[in-house]
């Protein structure tokens, strides 16, 4: 746990905690009408007393939209990554641990899917399913699955060849217990790190989909949608992009730092 007490750990962990708290509690503390309240006399305004971070093209308060958007963005990213983990973990572990034809078939499929750029895959799936929150999550989740499955498979393969697995086999440990006791705990550190990085990517992917009009639906706020809506006003009201952009940047930065620190903390060699 000492690893968290580095500058990187404190900043990264701090950001992640703050973002999570915002995502959890902002919607409870701030009435959601504050984020949709329009003020036609203060459109695209800079910071004022009434609107500390300015307003968007419909005169809505950017600060409240950013705070309330945290939940949407985090929820989409979190659920999507969770989904890809739920699919990718068994696939990767089975493939890497058992090897053989199962591995061949599964990894051939995964390799094929990997040839499709994630955003293209998400875009196509989103187009097939139609744009709404659930489908955005599914699209990102499916698009991310092959990446996670590949990494997990590699880790499972590595762990399956470790002497302690052979030692456990020598003492008669059956396959299911082997996976639960030996493989899963040992692949978890790299997987957790990958998950934090995937979260960062998922936030960006949601932004990308929203940018192309396939993500979150208005008037709900998500960071991606906010940036998307800002594209036509950037030169006159840069805050419309900078506010959600900074939120994405800080979160992604925090997640990446947190991931780096997790990598160090979870590595038994550094303990």
């Amino acid at each position, binding site marked *: 746990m000492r690893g968290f007490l580095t*500058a*990187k750990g404190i900043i990264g962990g701090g950001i992640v905690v703050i973002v999570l708290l915002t995502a959890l509690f902002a919607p409870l503390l701030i009435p959601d009408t504050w984020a949709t309240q329009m003020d036609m006399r203060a459109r695209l305004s800079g910071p004022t007393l009434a609107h500390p971070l300015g307003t968007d093209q419909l005169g809505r308060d950017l600060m409240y939209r950013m705070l309330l958007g945290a939940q949407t963005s985090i929820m989409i990213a979190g659920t999507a990554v969770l989904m890809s983990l739920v699919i990718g973990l068994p696939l990767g572990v089975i493939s890497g641990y058992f090897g053989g034809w199962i591995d061949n078939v599964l990894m*051939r*499929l995964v*390799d*094929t*899917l*990997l*040839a*499709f*750029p*994630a*955003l*293209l895959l998400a*875009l*196509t*799936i989103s*187009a*097939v399913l*139609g744009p709404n929150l659930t489908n955005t999550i599914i699209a990102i989740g499916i698009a991310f699955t092959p990446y996670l499955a590949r990494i997990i498979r590699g880790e499972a393969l590595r762990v399956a060849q470790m002497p302690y697995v052979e030692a456990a086999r020598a003492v008669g440990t059956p396959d299911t217990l082997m996976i639960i006791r030996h493989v899963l705990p040992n692949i978890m550190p790299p997987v957790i790190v990958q998950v934090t990085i995937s979260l*960062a990517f998922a936030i*960006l992917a949601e*932004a*990308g989909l929203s*940018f*192309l009009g396939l993500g979150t639906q208005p008037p709900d706020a998500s960071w*991606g949608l906010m*940036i998307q809506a800002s*594209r036509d006003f*950037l*030169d006159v009201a840069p805050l419309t*992009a900078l506010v959600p*952009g900074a939120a*994405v*940047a*800080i*979160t*992604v*930065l925090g997640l*990446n*730092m947190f991931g*780096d620190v997790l990598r160090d903390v979870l590595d038994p060699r550094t303990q």
Partner: protein
Amino acid sequence: MHYIANRLLSVAFTLLLISLITFLVTNILPGDVAMVIMGTQSNPEALAGLRESLGLNDPLIAQYGRWITGILTGDWGRSLVFKEAIGPLIADKVVASALIVVMSMCIALAAAIPLGIWAAVHRDKWQDNAASTTALFGVSLPDFFWGIMLILLFARYLGWLPSSGFVHPADDFVAAVRHAFLPSLALGLGLMAHLTRMTRSTMSSILSQEFIRVARAKGLTERTVIWRYALANAIGPVMTVAGLQVGYLFGSIIVIESLFNFTGMGWLTYQALLNRDIPLIQSTVFVIAAVVMLTNLVVDLLYAAVDPRIKLP
């Protein structure tokens, strides 16, 4: 040659899988091409006639068969919405995308390798943190955000570079590069971050290897040790990661090309998706996946070429 033949065979198989996935996915896309062609002016009779003449009423197997045969014989059909022959159209757009993909890769590598080496050499010192944070910043913002910012800065306020459009390098190479520069930069900033991290970790593991100590013990200068001994070993892994990122780039160009009105594969794919131009979607998606796969094949072969340990039997 066995290695290459082996790889090519598996590539062919994967391409077949890709074509199947592409075809099936595009056929469950909702929406109607005939509809899009006619726009708001359509009416049932005209629609029915158009559908028939487009072959949309044939069974799926027949449509797949027609498509795959066409792909193999070089007849890629025509875009339903834009009426252009798909083959030449894609050939043109691939050039555009290749230009920005290659340029962004060069930009990203040119920044990432020195930065990554710098960080690795000064591992865990302030330089390392500075480099990592700089790199992280690139990846923390969506690339279209950078795109918009770059347009404002370089085109609008400084007026150094054109804000949009694509010029074919065969027509005017300098203009082509100038037009491709901003989109490439926008793509490269995100890419740079990955490659910096990768270079850093590869270099730091190489720098801790024994042969580096041997090189230092020979009395070689630090510059030789790092830029020749270490880098020669890092180039393979970094190249592999860079190759894998081509897939990521071909995803990002969908957004960036639309933003810069840079009419390459990404733009075309997006247009095709928007218009439910099924033959065009099939071909663009197929080509992108194929290009991504083949790039990785080429990178693997290049890796084998720079690393004497890998033999091509």
